[in-house]
C-alpha cells in the first residue's frame, strides 16, 4: 500500500481546519501522512493543530506567502501520491483508496481531479458515493478537450509534480492549478475527473465583492498565456484578455481589471525565464475559461 501525503494550506481558519482534520481521521486508508502548512495564522490555528492533532506534521510560515506555502509542504512530503486540499475542504472517507487504485492501474494518469462538492450538500452526495461501485467507470472526461483541476481536492503523482516544478509561486493566489495543468499535460500525463472520488468544500455563499479573486485571476490569466502558449496564440489571447479587461471594467464599473492588466505588464519580471510553450495540441485543447475570470467581482 503506497504512502499518500495529504497537504493542506491554511490561514486564519481555525474552525474549518479543525473540522477538516477531524474528517480526515475518518479516511479509510492505512498509509496516510497529513501535512498542514500554516501561512502565518494569528488566530491560534497552528497551536490548535499541535495540541488536537499530534499526528499531523505542521509547517509554520512566518507570514502569508500564498500558494508558495503549498510547495513547502510538497517538498517535505514522503508519499508516492499527494492529495492537495484547502483549509476548508477534505476528501470523502473512501476517496483516497479509490484514487490509489486508479493511479496504480494507469501509469500515464498523472492527476485525479476529485469531484469537489459543496459541504452543505453532504448528505445527497454522500449517498451517491456509497452507492457507486468502485469498479465501474467514473471518469468524467471529454473526448474533445483537456481538463484542469480544482486545488480544493486533487491527487497527483509526487514525482510528476516535482518534475513540473509544483505550483507557480509567482501567482500568489488563483489560476495556479491551471498553470500546473499545462505542464502536466505537456509532460505526457493525463488529468481526469472521477465522479466517485469526492472532496467536500465549504463553498462560501456570501459574495464579499472582494478585489482579490478578480485581480489575481485576471493578472495570472495574462501570465498563463505568456508562459504557456505558442507566440501566435499568445498574442491573440492577450488581445482578447485586454478587450475583456476594458469591457468588464465598463460593465461592472470597477478599476480592478485594469489594475490587474497594468500589473501583469508591470510585474512581468516575476515570470522572467519561465516561459515554455506547450505542445500545440495542448494549447488548443486545454479548456481555460478565460471569460469566467471576469465574473467574480459583482
Amino acid at each position, binding site marked *: 500500500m503506497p504512502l499518500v501525503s495529504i497537504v493542506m494550506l491554511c490561514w486564519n481558519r481555525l474552525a474549518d481546519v479543525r473540522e477538516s482534520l477531524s474528517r480526515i481521521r475518518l479516511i479509510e486508508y492505512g498509509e496516510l501522512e497529513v501535512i498542514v502548512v500554516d501561512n502565518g495564522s494569528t488566530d491560534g490555528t497552528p497551536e490548535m493543530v499541535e495540541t488536537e492533532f499530534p499526528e499531523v506534521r505542521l509547517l509554520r510560515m512566518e507570514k502569508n506567502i500564498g500558494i508558495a506555502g503549498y510547495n513547502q509542504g510538497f517538498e517535505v512530503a514522503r508519499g508516492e501520491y499527494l492529495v492537495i486540499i484547502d483549509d476548508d475542504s477534505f476528501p470523502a472517507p473512501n476517496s483516497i483508496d479509490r484514487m490509489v487504485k486508479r493511479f496504480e492501474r494507469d501509469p500515464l494518469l498523472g492527476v485525479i481531479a476529485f*469531484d*469537489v*462538492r*459543496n459541504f*452543505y*450538500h453532504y448528505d*445527497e*452526495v454522500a*449517498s*451517491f458515493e456509497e452507492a457507486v461501485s468502485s469498479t465501474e467507470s*467514473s*471518469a*468524467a*472526461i*471529454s*473526448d*474533445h*478537450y483537456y*481538463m484542469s483541476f480544482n486545488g480544493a481536492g486533487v491527487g497527483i503523482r509526487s514525482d510528476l509534480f516535482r518534475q513540473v516544478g509544483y505550483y507557480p509561486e509567482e501567482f500568489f493566489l488563483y489560476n495556479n492549478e491551471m498553470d500546473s495543468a499545462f505542464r502536466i499535460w505537456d509532460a505526457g500525463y493525463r488529468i481526469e*475527473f472521477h*465522479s466517485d472520488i469526492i472532496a467536500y*468544500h465549504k*463553498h462560501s*455563499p*456570501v*459574495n464579499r*465583492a472582494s478585489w482579490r479573486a478578480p485581480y489575481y485571476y485576471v493578472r495570472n490569466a495574462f501570465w498563463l498565456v*505568456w*508562459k504557456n502558449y505558442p*507566440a501566435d496564440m*499568445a*498574442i491573440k489571447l*492577450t*488581445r482578447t484578455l*485586454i*478587450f475583456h479587461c*476594458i*469591457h*468588464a471594467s*465598463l*460593465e*461592472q464599473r470597477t478599476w480592478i481589471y485594469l489594475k490587474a492588466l497594468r500589473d501583469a505588464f508591470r510585474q*512581468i519580471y516575476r*515570470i*522572467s*525565464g*519561465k*516561459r*515554455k510553450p506547450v505542445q500545440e495540441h495542448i494549447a488548443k485543447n486545454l*479548456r481555460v*475559461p478565460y*471569460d*469566467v475570470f*471576469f*465574473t*467574480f*467581482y*459583482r
Partner: protein
Amino acid sequence: MYFLHFIGSFRMEGWNVLSKRKEYSRRALIIRSVSFQQLDQNFLELIKTFPRYEWDLLTHEHGVKLAGKYQSVHRVISYSYTESFSIWRREKSLKGKYYDALIIPVANLTGAGFLNVFLFSLTIKAKKRYMCNLVSELHPVSFSTIAVKAMMSLLNNVVSGILTGALLPFLWLLFPRMLNHLEKRSGR
C-alpha cells in the same frame, strides 16, 4: 372479491399515477453555467422554491457524470459544443421542448459577465426565466431585460474594441521581444 381487489388496486395505482403527474405537472431546466459547488447550494434552494417541478439540467460534456449525482434531476442533457453557451450554438436536442421555468445560475450577485448565457436561454422555449445568483436569490429575467443588457454590452463592445485597437500597435511592437525575454533558457 378478486374483482373488488382489482378495482381497489387499479384505483390506488391510478391515483398514484395521477398524483405523480400532478406532482411533476411543471418542468424546469437549469443551464449549468457555474461550478457544481455553487450549484449544490443553489439547487437546494431551487427545489424549495419550485417544489412540484421536474428538473432537467443542461451541462457541458465533462459535467454529465458529475450532474448525475443529483437525485432530483430527471434528465441530464449534454451540451453539444465544447465552447461556452452561445445564442449561435443552439442545443438541438432541446428543439421543440418547452419549460415552465428556465434557471440561469450566475457566479456573482448581479449576473455581470453572463450575457452569453442569458442570450443562449432565448433559444429555449420557456414560460419564465430566472437568474439564480451566488446567494441563491431568484430574479425573473424577461426578454426586454436581456435585450437591454445586450444593447449595453454592444455599446461596451464598441468602446472596448476601439480602446483595444488603440493599444494593438504597441502590443505588436513589444510582444515578440517580451516573449523572447520570458523564454526559458536551457541550463538556467
